């Protein structure tokens, strides 16, 4: 009887030892599993961080730019919630073509930026009565009431009451096209400097555009910016500035048709040696501008159709530096604009 008791006690002890060992093994396994998971998470984070860093480095941007961009998008999201998506023009005006374009990866990103910025502008309107009045002018704008209209062929007199705003390429067009339009253009002009950059010649020297622009002076406004800004900020910041520009123009020129001019390609040689201003980047920005123009109920025009070769590069004989069109080719540009005009 006593022997049986001792034997059971021994068995119990052996069982307890086995149980403790199993428990310990299970604990070790759990710790190992946690460490593997932690290592995996750390690897993913480091890889993501490195990816973002390399992507920023490639685009010549910093983490500061990224943070600012996120800030813009956050503001836009807040504004979107305040205003409500039903008020966004893109929802009601979006065409099937735009929908298709947006389904493409790049376009989808661009379109998100565009709608976010647009709603951001609306959000600011909701906070500021004065700006709201400007927005009301915009929404009542007769130029937009039956948007979009079809392009028509016009003669040169169409441009007599047109204003062109832009960079050195557009200045070259102003000097050599022979059009009797008004050109507020300057070499090195960038959108984010619009309030301070001295562009317009006056008796008292050059002045910024909005120090000089008179109300109801123009019926058409062509804007061609974006190439010089490629080393500056992010797409969202660029579009934010573009939205501000259009809002200001519409407040002063409520009847004006707004044209968003796409960026002209550079030559293949220039594109290969300048990654910031490559044709790939230009195409991506043009896709973004195309969507942006629709959101803003403006008209996108792209003369690359007539100045680019089959590989999407500016013909090398049309330029001396790979960027600016020679004077003799301004006729092509002018004819393109004449064939792509909106008549109210």
């Amino acid at each position, binding site marked *: 009887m006593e022997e049986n008791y001792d034997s059971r006690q021994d068995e119990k002890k052996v069982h307890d030892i086995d149980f403790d060992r199993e428990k310990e093994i299970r604990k070790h396994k759990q710790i190992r599993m946690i460490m593997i998971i932690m290592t995996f998470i750390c690897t993913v984070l480091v890889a993501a961080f490195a990816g973002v860093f390399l992507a920023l480095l490639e685009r010549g941007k910093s983490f500061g730019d990224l943070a600012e961009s996120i800030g813009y998008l956050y503001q836009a999201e807040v504004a979107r919630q305040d205003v409500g998506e039903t008020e966004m023009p893109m929802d009601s005006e979006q065409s099937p073509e735009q929908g298709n374009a947006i389904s493409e990866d790049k376009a989808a990103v661009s379109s998100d930026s565009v709608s976010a910025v647009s709603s951001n502008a609306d959000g600011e309107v909701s906070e500021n009565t004065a700006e709201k009045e400007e927005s009301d002018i915009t929404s009542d704008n007769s130029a937009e009431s039956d948007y979009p209209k079809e392009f028509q062929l016009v003669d040169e007199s169409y441009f007599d009451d047109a204003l062109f705003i832009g960079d*050195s*390429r557009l*200045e*070259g067009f*102003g*000097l*050599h096209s*022979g059009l009797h339009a008004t*050109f507020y*253009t*300057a*070499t*090195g002009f960038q959108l984010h400097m619009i309030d301070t950059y*001295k562009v317009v*010649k*006056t*008796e008292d*020297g*050059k002045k910024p555009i909005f120090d000089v622009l008179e109300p109801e002076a123009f019926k058409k406004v062509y804007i061609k910016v974006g190439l*010089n800004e490629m080393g500056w900020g992010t797409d969202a910041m660029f579009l934010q500035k573009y939205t501000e520009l259009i809002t200001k123009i519409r407040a002063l020129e409520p009847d004006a048709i707004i044209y968003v001019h796409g960026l002209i390609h550079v030559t293949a040689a220039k594109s290969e040696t300048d990654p910031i201003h490559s044709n790939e980047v230009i195409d991506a920005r043009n896709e973004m501008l195309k969507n942006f123009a629709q959101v803003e109920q403006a008209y996108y025009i792209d003369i690359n159709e007539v100045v680019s070769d089959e590989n999407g590069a500016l013909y090398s004989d049309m*330029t*001396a*530096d790979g*960027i*600016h*069109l*020679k*004077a*003799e080719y301004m006729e092509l540009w002018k004819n393109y604009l004449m064939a792509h005009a909106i008549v109210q």
Partner: protein
Amino acid sequence: MKDKNKCGKKIIVGLLSVIAISAVGCAGKTKEITVTELGESLLSNITYEDELAAIDLETAGMIYYLENAEITNACIYESSGATAEEIAVFECAASTDVNETEAAVRTRIEEQKESFENYVPEELVKLNNAVVIKNGNYVILSVSSDPDAARKIIEEAFK
């Protein structure tokens, strides 16, 4: 006899005065030039990086503030925007117009320096060596990589 001497002296003084006035007049008179010829000479005898093209005086209002100057003739060649290269030959109606035009030309150079400073800084060399010559009713500007040649062409034109 004394009267005859007095009369002779008067004639001599009078003649000298006429000669002196004529001499001063000749010295102050500038040779008249053809603005187009000088402009074309500056264009064809200097090598430019860009392809310069002629613009008219009205269009030049985009880049020169000439509202207060009466320009009778002008020959202006402009770059496509790629470089700061430029040729401008102005013939003014009067000396006050010359001063206004010269001021406009010098302002243009300064504005171009500001524009190109952060755009194509290499062009600042040409702008810093821009040739501005005022001669009689003419004001001439040449922005190129060969300012010595430009100066020589302009001086030759007025000989």
